[in-house]
């Protein structure tokens, strides 16, 4: 029997970046806020310190910072006709756990999406006609525009101290930046990081081909920075242990370095770790949440009543929280009806490997998670798709983040998987190869979705999330097209051998691609095709807000974190200026 606790104003489910931001703002506004985090508390000191943190086996291979999949797995299948099976070890994507959430182990790649992305369905129809899209695609507009979000992008970048070079300030194109970016109100808070050799080789080749290389916007900082919250960050030293690791140097912008100390000092906020939220509780009308039920680390069950519930867990966990709570109609791919779990999307990742002679010393281990150089000439809708038969694109960049050798030892095609020839190829190419990432958009499709698994359970006895996903043909065509462009750049760098690896189906959970899972609780203007309105408020239960990359109707050509930060500030603004003054629907259904 659950012990009923004293009611609070706000309960936050998941204290990662989003939860920290919402809690900090609402606690500062005078509301009593409880943050429930399933994982452990952790801080730069002592948990993230060297030398233990620089352990490839522990953090890269064995996924030490990730969601405990032995207690809380997901199941997966490519198609609805198959039996979904548990992802028994994380590989393809890596949801984090613990205070600070997945952002603790991010790479710090801090892109904005473009204006086009937020109105993708409308603009695609306008530019290419209404019959251009493949029939299976279910893309839609976001219900917010880039202009709505610009001030919030700006605020988030200044919270992080992002190091970059503007390409477009209020419509004025800036030399050295990305000319394709949508207008920003001012430059980045700190200048770009130093460019590594891979980036320099790429820059020269890409510029020579008439493209527009620019430095990767990085939240591993180029210089010391004090953010508007008064927190100080250090200069990144390019240790090459960024993604899947926590930063020991206070140089990566994560909740612990940019905001948590402020939140934790506020007596209006209470953090409870080791708390696994089972569901959001509804009253008998099913239109009003009364709080949440959770089980603590010792196994005790509690009911935490609250006036407002914010689900701010990792994207796939947001979907599951709503399904377990009976909030919103689950999506049915057969009829196309229902919304929760609909438009689950991902990222379409391809690579190009450029093998150089042994006199070209690359030093791949000198890097931050975001110290590369890239082009957006083939991203989004920055090129004409007429006659190509697909929409979307990818950035192409020399954005390799490390030389950690268990997982990074590139060899040319034809090299055996083991034996003398394998070893010789590893030794020969390790320090003389440039890897490009081609970071592609992921279009929502009718057959791709998430729901509750009928068979497998988590450690608390609840159904786990079932993901049904394969790459739509649209995205595979995009990957082939953009990879060919990447190969041309590799050749222009003067590499001896250039190998393009366009993403091909079927999607597999056995190979790391990205942790950019999106959709499933998408935002929009129409309750028949979205779970939350443009302020990220549940259409069905107005005192529940759901915030995560699960809100994205489809995924764009860039890493999703910065857009999520902007959306979070956008939703916080609506909470503070509208909802909390007069709780109720912010948009009429």
């Amino acid at each position, binding site marked *: 029997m659950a012990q009923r606790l004293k009611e609070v104003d706000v309960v936050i489910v998941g204290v990662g970046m989003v939860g920290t931001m919402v809690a900090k703002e609402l606690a500062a506004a005078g509301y009593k806020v409880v943050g429930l985090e399933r994982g452990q508390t952790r801080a730069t000191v002592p948990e993230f310190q060297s030398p233990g943190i620089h352990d490839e086996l*522990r953090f890269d*291979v064995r996924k030490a910072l990730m969601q*405990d999949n032995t207690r809380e797995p997901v199941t997966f299948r490519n198609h609805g006709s198959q039996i979904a099976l548990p992802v*028994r070890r*994380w590989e393809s994507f890596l949801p984090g756990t613990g205070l600070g959430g997945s952002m603790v182990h991010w790479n710090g790649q801090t892109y904005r999406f473009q204006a086009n992305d937020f109105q993708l369905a409308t603009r695609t129809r306008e530019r290419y006609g209404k019959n251009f899209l493949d029939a299976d695609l279910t893309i839609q507009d976001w219900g917010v525009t880039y202009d709505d979000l610009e001030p919030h992008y700006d605020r988030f970048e200044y919270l992080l101290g992002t190091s970059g070079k503007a390409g477009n300030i209020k419509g004025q194109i800036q030399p050295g930046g990305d000319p394709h970016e949508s207008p920003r109100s001012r430059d980045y808070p700190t200048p770009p990081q130093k460019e590594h050799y891979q980036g320099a080789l790429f820059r020269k080749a890409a510029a020579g081909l008439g493209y527009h290389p620019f430095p990767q916007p990085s939240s591993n900082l180029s210089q010391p920075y004090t953010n508007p919250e008064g927190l100080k960050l250090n200069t990144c030293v390019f240790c090459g*242990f960024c993604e899947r690791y926590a930063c020991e140097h206070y140089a990566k912008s994560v909740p612990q370095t940019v905001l948590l100390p402020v939140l934790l000092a506020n007596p209006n906020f209470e953090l409870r770790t080791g708390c696994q939220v089972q569901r959001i509780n509804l009253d008998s009308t099913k239109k009003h949440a009364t709080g949440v039920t959770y089980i603590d680390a010792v196994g005790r069950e509690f009911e935490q009543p609250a006036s407002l519930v914010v689900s701010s867990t990792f994207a796939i966990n947001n979907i599951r929280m709503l399904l377990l709570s009976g909030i919103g109609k689950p999506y049915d791919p057969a009829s196309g009806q229902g919304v929760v779990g609909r438009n689950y999307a991902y990222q379409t990742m391809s690579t190009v490997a450029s093998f150089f002679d042994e006199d070209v010393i690359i030093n791949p281990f000198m*890097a931050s998670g975001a110290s590369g150089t890239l082009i957006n000439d083939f991203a989004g809708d920055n090129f004409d798709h007429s006659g190509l038969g697909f929409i979307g694109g990818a950035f192409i960049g020399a954005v390799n983040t490390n030389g950690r*050798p268990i997982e990074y030892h590139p060899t040319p095609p034809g090299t055996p998987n083991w034996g003398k020839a394998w070893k010789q190829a590893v*030794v020969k190419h390790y320090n003389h190869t440039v890897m490009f990432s081609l970071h592609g958009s992921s279009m929502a499709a009718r057959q791709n979705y998430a729901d509750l698994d009928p068979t497998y359970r988590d450690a608390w006895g609840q159904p786990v999330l079932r993901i049904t996903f394969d790459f739509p043909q649209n995205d595979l065509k995009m990957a082939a097209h953009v990879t060919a462009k990447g190969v041309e750049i590799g050749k222009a760098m003067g590499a001896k051998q250039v190998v393009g690896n366009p993403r091909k189906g079927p999607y597999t959970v056995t190979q790391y691609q990205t942790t950019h899972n999106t959709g499933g609780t998408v935002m929009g203007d129409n309750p028949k095709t979205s779970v939350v309105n443009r302020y990220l408020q549940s259409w069905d239960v107005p005192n529940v807000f759901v915030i995560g990359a699960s809100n994205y109707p489809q995924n764009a050509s860039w890493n999703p974190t910065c857009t999520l930060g902007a959306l979070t500030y956008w939703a916080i603004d609506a909470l503070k200026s509208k909802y909390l003054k007069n709780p109720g629907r912010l948009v009429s259904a």
Partner: protein
Amino acid sequence: MDRVTRRSFVTGVGAASVLPAATLLTSAQAAEPVKQNSPDASGIATPDVSAADRPTYLFFNAAEVLFIEAACERLIPADENGPGALGAGVPNYLDKQLGGAWGAGERLYRSGPWVLGTATQGYQLPFTPAELFRTCLRAIDHEMTAKNAAFHEMSGDQQDVYLKSLESGAHELDGVPSDIFFDMLLKMSIEGFFADPAYGGNKDMVAWRMIGFPGAYADYYESIDKHGVKFEREPLSLAEDGRGHVHMRPDIPANL
């Protein structure tokens, strides 16, 4: 506990295959270097590991050691670039990992029902890594015994043929498709070769030296924009003390 000399293993592999798992093989007992394959033309190998460097095996039994040492050295052989799996201590890494939490299924979701599924769904067997190795190594030993053969006595080329047949999934090892076992063996061998020496492989950071990876070293601020210049520095282990001695800690947990 049975105690058997190295010589008796080498000469009596058939008997060794039925020895209890608890059999210990220590450096002192392993006075005779085991016969190993190196890439020389003769096909009969010469050892590249001195007896004093031989690890104490705690997980693998004596028969398993013969296979594991020989197989790992074919996967990552010694060559002109430097030591292979044996010289780097890869079998020791495997032994310590399989005998520890990882071998017992650390970070592996282990509830049924069990269905083999599609290749895109990944590993779906009920076995922990330790159980998988035990099961498959026993099955391999039975296969060899039935053919009156011993893997570690084959020529290098013959060993490669056999390993390739495992890799292709051609064998069923007591119900386990052999490619699943081979993939785990290869993956863990590469881990042991390149992981921090704290885990018991990558001895003296030989694999890092071979490719020029500086290990746990953590500051390239002054070097990163000196483009194309080789970074000359001794690699650093995370378990290195002030005198440069690396302390073995194979039991580091796979969480924070």
